[in-house]
């Protein structure tokens, strides 16, 4: 049956950090397999959908990774022009608050 969940549902860690000055990387770790698989199997995390959610061009979404071993998901994307670490419009030097638009994201999952 289809239902809507927030991406953060069942996650114990939902964080972001720079992967170098020009990229942000978001790490999500779920507490249980069911929560992780609900997101992974939903097919919601495509480059296009992530780009749309983050209001960036599709090319800016550089990678979406699933790690079954750690129940983890990683999403890496390019920083906005002028907002790289240390650039003139940078207010988040470590990229530590950039996960928030993804945390509240509501996606459709199907529990079958």
């Amino acid at each position, binding site marked *: 049956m289809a239902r809507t969940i927030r991406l953060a549902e069942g996650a114990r860690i939902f964080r972001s950090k720079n992967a170098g000055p020009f990229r942000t990387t978001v790490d999500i770790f779920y507490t249980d397999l069911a929560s992780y698989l609900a997101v992974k199997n939903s097919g919601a995390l495509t480059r296009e959908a992530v780009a749309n959610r983050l209001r960036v061009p599709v090319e800016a979404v550089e990678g979406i990774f699933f790690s079954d071993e750690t*129940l983890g998901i990683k999403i890496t994307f390019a920083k906005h022009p002028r907002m790289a670490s240390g650039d003139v419009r940078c207010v988040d030097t470590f990229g530590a608050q950039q996960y928030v638009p993804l945390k509240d994201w509501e996606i459709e999952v199907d529990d079958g």
Partner: protein
Amino acid sequence: MDEVRLLQSSAMGYGNVSWEAIRRGLELEPHVIVGQGTSSDPGPAYLGSDELHPYVGRLNRKRDLGLILRAAVEGRVPFIFSGGSPSGSDLHLAGVLEVVNELTRENGWRLRIGVISGQIDKAWLKTKLRQGVRVPRLADYPDLSPELTESDIERCKIIVAQMGPEPIIEALRQGVDGVITGRAVDIALYMAYPLLHGFDRAVTAHMAKTIECGALCADPPIADNVFAILRRDHFDVFPLSPDRRCTVTSVASHAFYERPDIFRELNPGGFLDVSKAHFEQVDERTVRVWGARWVEQPYTVKLEGVQQIGYRTITLAGVRDPALLEHIDDLVETVWRRTREKWEDEVGPFELEFMIFGKDAILGPSEPYSRVTGHEACLLASVVAHTQELATAIIAYVRGQLLFADYPGRTSTAGNVAVPFSPGDIPTGPVYVWRIWHALPLDDPLEPFRMRIIDFPCDPSELAWLTGGRRVEGGRIDG
């Protein structure tokens, strides 16, 4: 040699490491003590800084380095760490070495240390370009040239490269008590000793990647001391604090940390591929790891360079009136336009930015909200100009306009915004931006990295090769 036992102890100066944990590590008879002490994470300003200890300060640095050196002396164990506050430039490496000099003098320690510079000679790098070496950028960002140019090199004040393990191995071969490097790949520091003794590159690199941030690979994750035992086909890792343990999840998930990709990481000479790695809990606090692969690639080192673009002065302006919260973009637009019109013809180009905390300061274009939704907000105005005096003059004009410019529904003719503090204009000093973030191919991994062997304590003149002849001592630099 069947195994290498590594005691990890950070050289960053964050104050996470402790003698108690190191002492427990020494009881396990490590072959080598290793810690990383350089980073680009805190931003480009540090690489450009003219101060000796611009990052965590000299006292923090001295305490953490003192622990590593004391462990090396008391345990008779060689040490390897990178240093430079935290950029790894020659000036900042000299800052680390003057602290080491003071520590060895105060404690009566005598140490022969291999010192390796990570700063790149600009003339040498230009020669490489003229020989046709192509140096591509490592990120698709508008301010980075797709391929490094001579003008990039000229614009940058300082350029460093992240050395691989090879120069460190070369230093260890000279029979030193320890090695201190400038900018280096963190995992190279942990790889050098095992590679010198013929251990497998894949398992060595995965061990290094796991322990490079200390007990961030443990649960709960805090960057205090960690210990690894590397064998021919696997390694074991456990934290030295009794309050923490390594679990399969904590170790496997550390591959996520500050990395764009969880399975493949580009290093000098190859990719580390951990997609087929296995993790096993061998006791309550220890995890065993094997199965990573090393995929050979052409040898490259990452170059990092910063250009000074001017000096910054900022001012803050608090907003509480609902009418202004609704029309804050109108006020900003007016002030932005007037400031441009007033100053640009007179003084040439400058950078002017308004960041509205309460609206979209933190996320910029990624912010879903298009207006202020709370009952108050804060405007941060930033000017970057050719001189500090000019930046401050422009920001004073900006502040006046923020106070008195008109916006729809304005009643506050005695002042629009709340200015915190007096003085309200805050000069923050020189501004640097990354201009070089490129991959330099090398035929010889040692070529750009200068090394000297120095017997500590030493005369400060022996450090002058890193400072253009200037004397560095007691936290000060002459000239």
